[in-house]
């Protein structure tokens, strides 16, 4: 149904350049239905570019990209995207509800405006992330954690089968991150959604995902999270000695279920 054996994302031998410089090279990457994977690596290692390739907004020079068995541009309505918190304008005059409604603009197409049906859907999705009570609040007045939840609601409102999250933990405290990852687990369980999370914090992300890809121009490792935490592997991907802090079930200061 989703291309080869339920594959949601499939990249083969992908090469991407920015202004002549190679940013991604020899990339083989796949994601199965219901899987949560993290793409981890240093700044400038090509993590966000990989998401853009999957979204179909960055052209590749070589290789193939399939999303749900289709070229990315044809699968756009099946993808929900949470850009980095730094990409939106802070003082922009929108309410929480406006932001979530934007998640349906692509699917609505030109000339159509959100109507009552779309508003109800947006309110329902806000309810799923426990933010319905703040629907009429200005978005800029929310905390980082609350904005992140609204961003997730916006990404989910069009009922995507694939969620792409670019550095979702930036500007969010540890407690809010914990509850955010629990939310992802919930949506994976309820909706069978697949998730790709881009992060630079391997220690935080490893305990909550099924697989980790260590990316620094090439994918240096793609497999079980424990394997990604090996010092030699991290050094290979980050290009320097890395000191690791893992928030797992033994962490005394972490808040957990």
């Amino acid at each position, binding site marked *: 149904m989703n291309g080869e054996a339920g594959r949601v994302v499939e990249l083969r031998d992908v090469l991407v350049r920015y202004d002549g410089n190679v940013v991604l090279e020899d990339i083989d990457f796949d994601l199965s239905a219901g899987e949560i994977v993290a793409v981890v690596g240093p700044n400038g290692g090509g993590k966000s570019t990989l998401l853009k390739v999957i*979204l179909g*907004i960055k052209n590749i020079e070589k290789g193939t990209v399939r999303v749900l068995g289709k070229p990315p*541009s044809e699968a*756009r309505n099946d*993808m929900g*995207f949470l*850009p*980095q918190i730094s*990409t*939106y*304008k802070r*003082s*922009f*005059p*929108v*309410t929480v509800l*406006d*932001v979530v409604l*934007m998640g349906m*603009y*692509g699917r*609505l197409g*030109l*000339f159509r*405006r*959100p109507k009552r049906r779309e508003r109800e859907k947006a309110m329902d999705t806000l309810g799923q992330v426990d933010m319905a009570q703040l629907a009429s609040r*200005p978005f*800029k*007045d929310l905390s980082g954690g609350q904005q992140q939840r609204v961003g997730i609601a*916006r990404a989910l409102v069009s009922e995507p089968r694939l969620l792409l999250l670019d550095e979702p933990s930036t500007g969010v405290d540890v407690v809010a991150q914990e509850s955010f990852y629990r939310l992802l687990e919930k949506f994976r369980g309820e909706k069978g959604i697949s998730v790709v999370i881009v992060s630079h914090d391997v220690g935080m992300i490893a305990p909550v995902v099924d697989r980790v890809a260590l990316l620094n121009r090439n994918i240096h490792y793609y497999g079980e999270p424990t394997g990604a935490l090996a010092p030699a592997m991290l050094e290979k991907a980050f290009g320097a000695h890395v000191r690791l802090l893992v928030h797992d079930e033994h962490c005394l200061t972490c808040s957990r279920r």
Partner: protein
Amino acid sequence: MSGMLGLGFMQKAFLAGAIISIVLSLMSFFVVLRGMSFIGVGIAHSALGGIALGVLAGVDPRWTAIVFCVAVANLITYTSRKGALQEDAVIGIFFSLTMAAGIILIGLSKAYSVDLFGYLFGNILAVSNEDLWLAAGVGLLVLASAGVFFKELLMDSFDRELALASGIPVKSLDHLMASLIALTVVISVKLVGIVLASALLVIPGATALRLTARWQRMLGISLVAALLATFGGLSLAYFFDLAPGASIAVVSSALFFLSFLRKS
């Protein structure tokens, strides 16, 4: 007041002011939200080149200004996207080039009757019926275009990456916005002139953004601010014998500074 409104040229001035305020308030909304204030200044000043071309060729300068301004606006948008230069440097270059070309061309035309001061600072008291029809027609086109693509422009203004990921053609929207700014500037030139049109492309939207955190209200406040500035400025000009274009810009700026009385 009734004396002022009883005069035919003042009635036309108020009507032209109302039409242009409606268009300027909407464009100002987007100019402020998209951070395009400087591109507005650049496009406005390029109008002089277009006017001069018309004067030299013996064609109605309003039409040459429309074609020239739209072309320059799209060239600035294209060059800043393609070139290695930052957008503000590109605007700075086009701004001075087109204005200088305009002054040279007007000099070459030997048409000493050209009201250069009128083009630079406006002459709303000399609005003709033709000017009114042009402002109404072009204004409707601008409002309709911005209205059709409103939600896409809003989303792109908020978060370009999100707009791209939603399949919204953001490059085309950049060109659409540049063209609409150019058209707005051309119909505003008669009212406030080239120099002040660029100010009115920014001030009503900036005033509104200071007063609200909701885009729907921002649109309304921007419209009220533009209408108040135009009507207030015209009235001040009539009663105190001041330059109308400059009076409109001063009232608009005064409203902006008054908005600081409200704590953000």
